[in-house]
């Protein structure tokens, strides 16, 4: 009793600061106790969920495999398959289980194509998972919309394209890129029509994904990329350049040459190796004549191109650059000289004792 009073009395007598401090301390102690309890709860919940997830995953994996092999020769659903569908259907109202089922279906559908893949898509529709995905499209939150679109993409649901397309200019990049992937996954080159209208930039990450999806389907009729090469949206131009390289678009020669004068340096630099790849010799002449005005990056890219398209008439130009201060240009110039005319190369190889020059010559001689 005495102690209690002592503490309370000294508390009341202390300065405001000390009182505040002790109040904070009490608050902290209770907070710590509270979050320790929360931590314990959290860990056991996570552990329980993990075990449950593994168990359910196994069940669903087995169900799905059984479903795929329970079909009869005819096109309709066998009784066994229907039973599996019904059972899965009854489970999906819980988000936890629904997510596991989706990831189970996806685990397989990423790897396989053909009849089996279509069976899986049918299963997705029949179990009603599709309705959940559709409702996500109408949600307000951007990450939910993006997930909805992704699910519809992964299960090849073409019918809802109008509902997906409205998000074409959504402020969040994740939604826009999900939408773009939807269009390209399901409609391949026709899906690229959005490039005509898009004003927002497309990141490299998204571009690579789109290109990979396009390449999944061989023997495609490639879209006409001319208009995209002239787009005011620079990322569209860069994307079109990648398309031109992968699909060997010799027909767009003029548009590509025009890009040599584009205001964006990355475009100017990226176009050069493409011109080389397509063996567009006219470009060589233009670049050679403008060489002094080019930026260093463009100059290096040009020399790399020269390695493929050099001709005897280029020798004087090459000779001008065997002493170029830039290492890479020097290297290319000497290499080309050796290939052009080995005697002249031998003549000039001792031109200077500058160490870089000597090393380059030595390497070129033995390789």
């Amino acid at each position, binding site marked *: 009793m005495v102690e209690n009073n002592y503490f309370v009395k*000294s508390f009341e007598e*202390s300065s405001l*600061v*000390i009182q505040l*401090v*002790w109040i*904070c*301390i009490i608050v*902290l*102690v209770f*907070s*710590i106790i509270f*979050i*320790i309890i*929360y*931590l*314990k709860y*959290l*860990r056991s919940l*996570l*552990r329980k969920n*993990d075990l449950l997830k593994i168990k359910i995953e196994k069940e669903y994996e087995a169900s799905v495999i059984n479903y795929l092999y329970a079909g009869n020769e005819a096109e309709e659903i066998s009784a066994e398959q229907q039973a599996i569908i019904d059972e899965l259907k009854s489970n999906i109202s819980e988000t936890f289980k629904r997510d596991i089922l989706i990831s189970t279906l996806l685990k397989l559908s*990423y790897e396989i194509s053909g009849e089996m893949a279509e069976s899986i898509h049918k299963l997705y529709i029949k179990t009603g998972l599709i309705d959940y995905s559709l409702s996500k499209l109408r949600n307000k939150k951007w*990450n939910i919309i*993006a*997930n909805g679109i*992704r699910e519809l993409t992964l299960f090849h649901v073409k019918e809802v394209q109008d509902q997906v397309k409205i998000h074409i200019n959504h402020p969040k*990049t*994740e939604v826009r890129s999900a939408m773009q992937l939807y269009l390209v996954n399901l409609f391949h080159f026709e899906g690229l029509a959005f490039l005509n209208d898009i004003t927002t*930039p497309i*990141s*490299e*990450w*998204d571009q*690579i*994904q789109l*290109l*990979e*999806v396009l390449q999944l389907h061989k023997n495609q009729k490639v879209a006409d990329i001319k208009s995209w090469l002239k787009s005011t949206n620079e*990322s569209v131009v860069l994307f079109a350049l*990648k398309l031109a390289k*992968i699909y060997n678009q010799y027909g767009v020669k003029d548009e590509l040459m025009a890009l040599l004068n584009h205001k964006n340096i990355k475009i100017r630099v990226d176009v050069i190796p493409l011109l080389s790849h397509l063996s567009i010799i006219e470009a060589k002449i233009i670049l050679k004549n403008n060489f002094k005005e080019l930026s260093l990056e463009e100059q290096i890219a040009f020399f790399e191109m020269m390695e493929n398209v050099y001709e005897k008439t280029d020798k004087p130009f090459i000779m001008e650059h065997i002493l170029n201060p830039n*290492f*890479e240009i020097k*290297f290319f110039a000497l290499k080309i000289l050796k290939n052009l005319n080995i005697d002249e190369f031998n003549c000039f190889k001792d031109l200077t004792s500058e160490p*870089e020059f000597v*090393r*380059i010559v030595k*390497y070129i001689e*033995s*390789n």
Partner: protein
Amino acid sequence: MASLIHFLFFLYSFSIIGSYIILGIISVFETIEYMKKNKFVNYNKILSSNISPSISIIAPAYNESLNIIENVRSLLSLHYANYDVIIVNDGSKDDSLEKLIKAYNLVQVDFLINEQILTQPLRKGIYKSTNPAFEKLIVVDKENGGKADALNMGLNISTNKYVACIDVDCLLIEDALLKLIKPFLESIDKKVIAAGGVIRIANSCIIEQGKLLDINLPKKMLEKGQILEYLRAFLLGRMAWSRLNGLLVISGAFGLFDKKIAIGVGGYDTNTVGEDMEIIVRMRRYMEENKLKYKVAYIPDPLCWTEAPDNYKTFISQRNRWTRGTIETLRKHRKIGFNRKYNSMGILSYPYWFLFERMAPIVEVLGVIYFGYLIFNNEVRWDYIIGFVILAYLFTVLFSIIAIISEELTYHQYKKKGTGFKMIMIAFMEPFVIHPFILYAAIVGNKDYYFNKKKKWGAMTRKGMTKA
């Protein structure tokens, strides 16, 4: 006068606590955003793409003969299409090179190096494999020059656009390159110059043939304490700095860089022991001075597992080195401190790092000395002292436990039963058991920096492939 001193101490304490709280809150929000964005990312497409940019992994190695074969094997089986692995054998005195040559069918090759950065010369030369399965491997044997010098050699040799600088015994998870290149490719208006991720502590984890099999909490207090410290720093600190575009350090254990800019600023500084922090600050300065929009990215995913010191001697030595590295870097770049021209780096990051990282141990020691003086003169206001010390202690504990909870809610790597309890115990014990050693190491670090130049420049710092 006394009141002034007290006032300054309290101001300092409240500022540091306040800044931890702010950084913690920002980190939490950033991490939630990141989880939302990346929950369903399909890395498979990028992984197999030939259009994805090429990366060179540069791993300096010094006397790593014991594990180098396995480490290299692990590096060669990452999930990424276009990359090579450049192992720089930095004048090792053991048989690392011979072992590598045998295991990977290496032969010496002629290689033209564009020496953009001056380094120690080659020793035995450059080797590549005759077996197509190991085509990605390049082994470079050079004269000893230290980690920074070896990394610079790697920068010279790489012909790829991006370089990943790592510690050779760091275990990278399979998707590490994919996850770390993503910020570079996703950014539209800003150029990403460097990116880093979370380093996890591998002590007591079961690693076999380069693969992480089982994650365990180590037994020693020292190791557990470091895990807690890393969780606090990574989960409640770095995410915030990334958001504020003020991240000054990417761990030397694993970081991805834009090669052109790294070479453009002159590569790593061989005269500092904190080369990982110093190069980031220099790269950032370069971008700021050239008025280019940029970002240093950070992702909260665990990408890399590394061994932390398990005895106090090594631990103190490591922290001593970190202290000296921080002092060196801050001193070298003092021009940017409080300088509006350098935006968030000058106004936020540098002051924070200077006041709350570099000066904190000094303030703490001064506080202890002053406290001793007060006791000696019988001037102690025990009610104040006890109150504040308890408050500071409880705050630290709370912060640590919040870090533990963040880890549970994000990556939940420590699943085994009983770990939660052990982590909580560490949260309570750490200020008594680990913190004094960190303080000690920092003070010795300061002393060494100012008074022991030999240590700074001498053989010790040059030779060892010291851990990040």
